[in-house]
């Protein structure tokens, strides 16, 4: 996983404690392509902006599901790799120094009094880590929902005692025997990254073929990593902490692998989850919006894959357009004296929009 953008380091000090408060004009919920573009646009409109995402890095579906694929239908790019598109969106928004609240899921929406918001109320969105974002308006760009790592069957009791779903810090695995479960890019990338740090690395994959990049798989196979295919973890064993991973092979035999850490890289599942309880009209897990991208709650707008209206097409290009519409309408909601039309960015040589005014 790539490091979060610079600005998050500035606004999210290391060890930021739960229960912190963030004060902004606009909160963007979801840092996928639509959310990142909304973040840029809100900055361009002179709004102080925060963006929250349950994933540890921005990029939404693009980074979670297909960072290495080329995309051919984004206007102005004859072809661009998913990862590069996201990096460009982050760079474009960075000019306005948005506050990134990453690795936190937006759970509840209320007004400052803690009740159902009414028109003109200041809003509070609270995350699962207890961060409270105070804002005047919200743009929900939640895509297909929050991504959570697919759980390792039978692993639940071992979380925090040896089982993890992401590698936060490579150095934490120094001198450990590590078992990585999975066959995608994350599994193989982590195996490569840990090969020289851990005492041993074993990759366990259900199938013979890896989904990861062929070149990375070749690197892994040429290195010190033990690769076990056609096999799955049958159970974990330990005392306070994990010490052994039992692996069942296709022929039914079970082998024991000493391990102080098991990293399950089994992909993600998405679920709209908490947004369904925000009092917004939702049908089949999609948010109903009007032509101004308004939801049924005053001050709450939406854009991208998560919106629904007759004729909706779920594409990145469409999400960008909706994000601009949502933010410009939110700007006039926040300050009715502001015009709906933002002006042309090209009229401003520095491209810094209203923030400079």
């Amino acid at each position: 996983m790539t490091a979060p953008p610079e600005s998050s380091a500035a606004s999210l000090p290391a060890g930021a404690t739960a229960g912190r408060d963030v004060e902004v004009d606009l909160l963007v919920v979801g840092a996928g392509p639509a959310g990142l573009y909304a973040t840029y646009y809100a900055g361009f409109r002179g709004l102080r902006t925060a963006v929250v995402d349950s994933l540890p890095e921005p990029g939404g579906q693009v980074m979670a599901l297909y960072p290495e694929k080329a995309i051919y239908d984004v206007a102005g790019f004859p072809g661009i790799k998913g990862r590069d598109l996201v990096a460009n969106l982050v760079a474009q928004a960075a000019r306005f120094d948005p506050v990134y609240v990453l690795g936190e899921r937006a759970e509840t929406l209320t007004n400052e009094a803690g009740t159902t918001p009414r028109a003109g109320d200041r809003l509070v969105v609270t995350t699962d880590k207890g961060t409270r974002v105070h804002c005047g308006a919200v743009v929900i760009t939640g895509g297909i929902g929050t991504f959570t790592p697919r759980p390792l069957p039978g692993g639940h009791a071992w979380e925090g005692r040896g089982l993890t779903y992401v590698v936060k810090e490579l150095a934490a695995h120094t001198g450990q025997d590590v078992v990585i479960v999975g066959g995608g890019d994350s599994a193989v990338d982590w195996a490569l990254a840990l090969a020289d740090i851990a005492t041993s690395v074993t990759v366990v994959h259900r199938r013979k073929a890896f989904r990861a990049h062929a070149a990375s798989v070749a690197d892994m196979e040429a290195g010190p990593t033990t690769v076990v295919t056609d096999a799955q973890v049958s159970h974990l064993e330990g005392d306070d902490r994990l010490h052994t991973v039992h692996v069942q092979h296709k022929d039914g035999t079970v082998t024991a692998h000493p391990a102080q850490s098991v990293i399950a890289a089994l992909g993600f599942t998405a679920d709209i989850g908490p947004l369904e309880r925000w009092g917004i009209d939702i049908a089949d897990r999609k948010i109903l919006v009007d032509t101004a991208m308004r939801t049924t709650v005053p001050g709450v707008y939406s854009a991208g894959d998560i919106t629904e209206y007759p004729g909706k097409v779920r594409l990145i290009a469409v999400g960008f357009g909706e994000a601009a519409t949502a933010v410009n309408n939110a700007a006039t909601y926040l300050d009715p004296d502001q015009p709906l039309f933002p002006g042309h960015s090209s009229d401003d040589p520095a491209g810094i929009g209203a923030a400079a005014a």
Partner: protein
Amino acid sequence: MPYVIGSECIDTTDMSCVDECPVDCIYEGDRKLYINPKECIDCGACEPVCPVEAISQDRRVTEENEPHIADNRRFFIEPLPGRDAPLGSPGGASKVGKVGVDTELVTDA
């Protein structure tokens, strides 16, 4: 343009595809699995893992699997045999568990 499961799945049902789907939209009938066309995000992750190559994009299905495009949809929008209401879009197969019945096309296969 969702992905569709064809007749090859009938009585194979090894569930490999279910493990791959990021939106958990592959539902288990009795002798076959079905993709919810409203929930599928067209990512293609399920296609390569099927041991019997039952899965394809709806624009690319083989001629003999053509009826399964409508049949995958039917599993969700019409009441299944012995049920009063259609399954609809429950938003996750794991919430529903094994449905345990098939469409007529599959039962009669």
